[in-house]
């Protein structure tokens, strides 16, 4: 490749990084709401739980499409290697998201099969979250490549480690979902969300601990990154801050604060995300290709950047407006009308 005039890679890394994180948060909380949905005590509370995300889930899932396409546009080599390598988790995720997505309308319109669509919504959310966790685990483990292609088998991504990350993400999304429900509900239903939030937090902490202990043993590169001097001194605050946030989350689930459980859950996700980024930087196909090696041509990155910088703020504005329209508590007797 010729010497770049302008290096767009850092800014695309930032856009993609923020985009994926936004997806994880946004679809994370509504997948989480879907996971908790299965534990809702009765039909009235199920209605409320589903209504709390009905007007916004579609926009949240749009970030998934954009994340996939942005990866393809900015780092096509990574897209061409990673996506076929996680063939089956992606398949499971897509099929699960289909069932979950149509359940919103179908459950309401198709009363005689309501139980079926209830389960579709619940199991679809669990499976979708789990499959995304498996993708994450496979990503941390790395992929077998040959030239510019994935050279392993389609089942390589299923390992004990990726199952662990899958389970951890299910708990993580539940925690976000519980935080969202605490924001959007009141009374007995909010207490119920707090209880499930505490259980989810337990799962999340076990998950974070297990993944953190396991990860340095997966790859010598990561061990080296974490424990060599001076890295260890610089990185030491990461687990400490995470523990403090976990304590804050626990306290806010137990007192009456309504926004703090969601915010603390977002912070926990941010710390985990940061931990992964620190461990793998500057790789986009872990241990094989850096962000720069996998980048698309400057012409491609420049062309898309112009529009993205112009359109992204507008998107955030009207997405914010649609959240504003549906602000406040979701209520059973009146709904939103």
């Amino acid at each position, binding site marked *: 490749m010729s010497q770049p005039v302008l290096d767009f890679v850092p800014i695309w890394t930032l856009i993609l990084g923020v985009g994926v994180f936004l997806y994880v948060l946004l679809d994370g909380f509504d997948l989480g709401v879907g996971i908790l949905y299965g534990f809702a005590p009765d039909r009235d509370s199920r209605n*409320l739980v589903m209504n709390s995300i*009905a007007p916004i889930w579609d*926009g949240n*899932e749009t970030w998934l499409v954009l994340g996939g396409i942005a990866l393809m546009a900015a780092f096509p080599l990574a897209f061409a290697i990673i*996506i076929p390598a996680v063939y089956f988790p992606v398949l499971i995720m897509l099929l699960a998201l289909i069932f979950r997505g149509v359940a*919103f*309308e179908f459950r309401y319109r198709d009363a005689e099969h309501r139980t079926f669509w209830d389960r579709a919504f619940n199991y679809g959310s669990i499976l979708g979250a789990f499959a995304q966790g498996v993708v994450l685990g496979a990503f941390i483990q790395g992929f077998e490549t040959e030239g510019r292609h994935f050279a392993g088998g389609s089942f390589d991504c299923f390992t004990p480690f990726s199952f662990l990350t899958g389970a951890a993400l299910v708990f993580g999304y539940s925690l976000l979902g519980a935080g969202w429900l605490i924001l959007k509900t009141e009374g007995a239903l909010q207490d119920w969300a707090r209880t499930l939030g505490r259980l989810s937090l337990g799962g999340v902490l076990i998950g974070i601990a297990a993944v953190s202990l396991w990860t340095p043993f997966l790859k010598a590169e990561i061990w080296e990154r974490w424990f060599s001097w001076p890295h260890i001194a610089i990185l030491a605050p990461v687990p400490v801050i995470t523990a403090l946030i976990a304590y804050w989350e626990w306290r806010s689930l137990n007192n009456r604060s309504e926004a703090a459980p969601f915010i603390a859950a977002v912070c926990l996700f941010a710390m985990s995300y940061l931990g992964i980024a620190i461990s793998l930087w500057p790789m986009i196909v872990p241990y094989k290709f850096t962000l720069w090696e996998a980048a698309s*041509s400057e012409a491609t990155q420049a062309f898309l950047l112009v529009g993205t910088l112009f359109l992204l703020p507008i998107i955030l504005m009207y997405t914010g407006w649609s959240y504003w329209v549906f602000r406040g508590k979701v209520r059973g007797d009146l709904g939103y009308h």
Partner: protein
Amino acid sequence: MSLDPVVLSRLQFAWVIAFHFLLPAFTVGLASFIAVLEGLHLATGREIYFRISTFWIKIFAVSFGMGVVSGIVMPFQIGTNWSRFSDAAADVISPLLAYEGLTAFFLEAAFLGVLLFGRNLVPRWAHFVAALMVALGTLFSTFWILATNSWMQTPAGYEIVNGRFLPKDWLQVIFNPSFPYRLAHTVDAVYITTGFVVIGVAASYLRSGRFVDEARTMLSMTLWLLTVLVPLQFFLGDAHGLNTLEHQPAKLAAIEAIWDTHSRVALNLFAIPDEKAETNRYELAIPDLGSLILTHDPNGTVRGLKDWPADERPSPVIVPFFGFRIMVGIALVMLGVVVASLWLRSRGELFDARWFLWLCTLASPLGFVAVLAGWATTEVGRQPWTVYGLLRTADSVSPSLTGFDVAVSFAGYCIVYLVMFSAGFALMVRLIRLGPAEAAIEPDAIESGRPQHPVQALPSTGAGGRP
């Protein structure tokens, strides 16, 4: 029998995109229709537009939800099954797909919530703007996805470096030779498809004497629209055909099942193309008409399939050949409906002629068949290439996939799509049976998850009326 990952990946892609395509084919037109109705309601204040709009919004919600979830599948297909295509072509096509997401998906998603659930939460004009934005979003989406598809059909504005396509001129990439024709032809096609669904529904209400006012408005409005769009489609289709002759002559030869290059080509009305023998069986043809239609000159020369080596011809020829004939046949039926409607209108019998109402009802799914037939024609006609003439389909598939892998995923998509689409179809039929009156009585609540409400006294009429 050995499982070939290339063949299975093609089948899987065809399956998921065919089902997905049915939804935009309906929702793009429906979104515009709803925006028009909301605009008319805002301008005239007439209650009937509100009732019709509310009714179609409910059907739109079901089909749009299905369109979204089946659409999420599509970009991942390109990665999971066609990774070598992604690696080769991503630099050129992925910004187009990304612009689809940026300009269309977020617009649709953000304003859809307001359109479906926000009628009483925002001022009337804002609800109309939401309808307009959703409609605009669907058209932006059509623009970008067809630019991408057209680039694969008639690539332009690129250079090839180390086996990868790199962009040279974005305007040429987007406005590649077949794009304007494909865009016009497809948008007209999806509008017509929606139009026929609307007149079919209206006609069945008129036949049974239900919702007569709403049905008359829908039927009359939509037939005027179709009176313009259906004849227009013949011109657009013809222009697109000339473009194909120029840029994809092998596809055109397959569409017409022409094997030998010569002038004064006959038009094959029917034939069974035999690829092994390189000839047609049971041919029924009109002399010279082929050249006249294809080149606008009875002496015009049309290249035959034998001009290309066997491994550079679209296969199976039978798909573009019959796909095209089904599409054109349906277009002629549609033209018949339009002509009949003009005649009946002039006699003042549009709403009363039972044979015509039956005809409209029976014709209501024809647009979908035509859209799928046209799509199969153009996509199979592109074979054996993913990027026409440059990158073979067989060289585009992910190298890591085994036939077994793809067989498993294909089975998964088959089962899930059959369940989802039949459930969705049944729901839409049920909503149509319930009809507009029922739809208007229901409150505009967050509907998913709401139990059926008892009948309320009055329809809600906008910002003031909180039921």
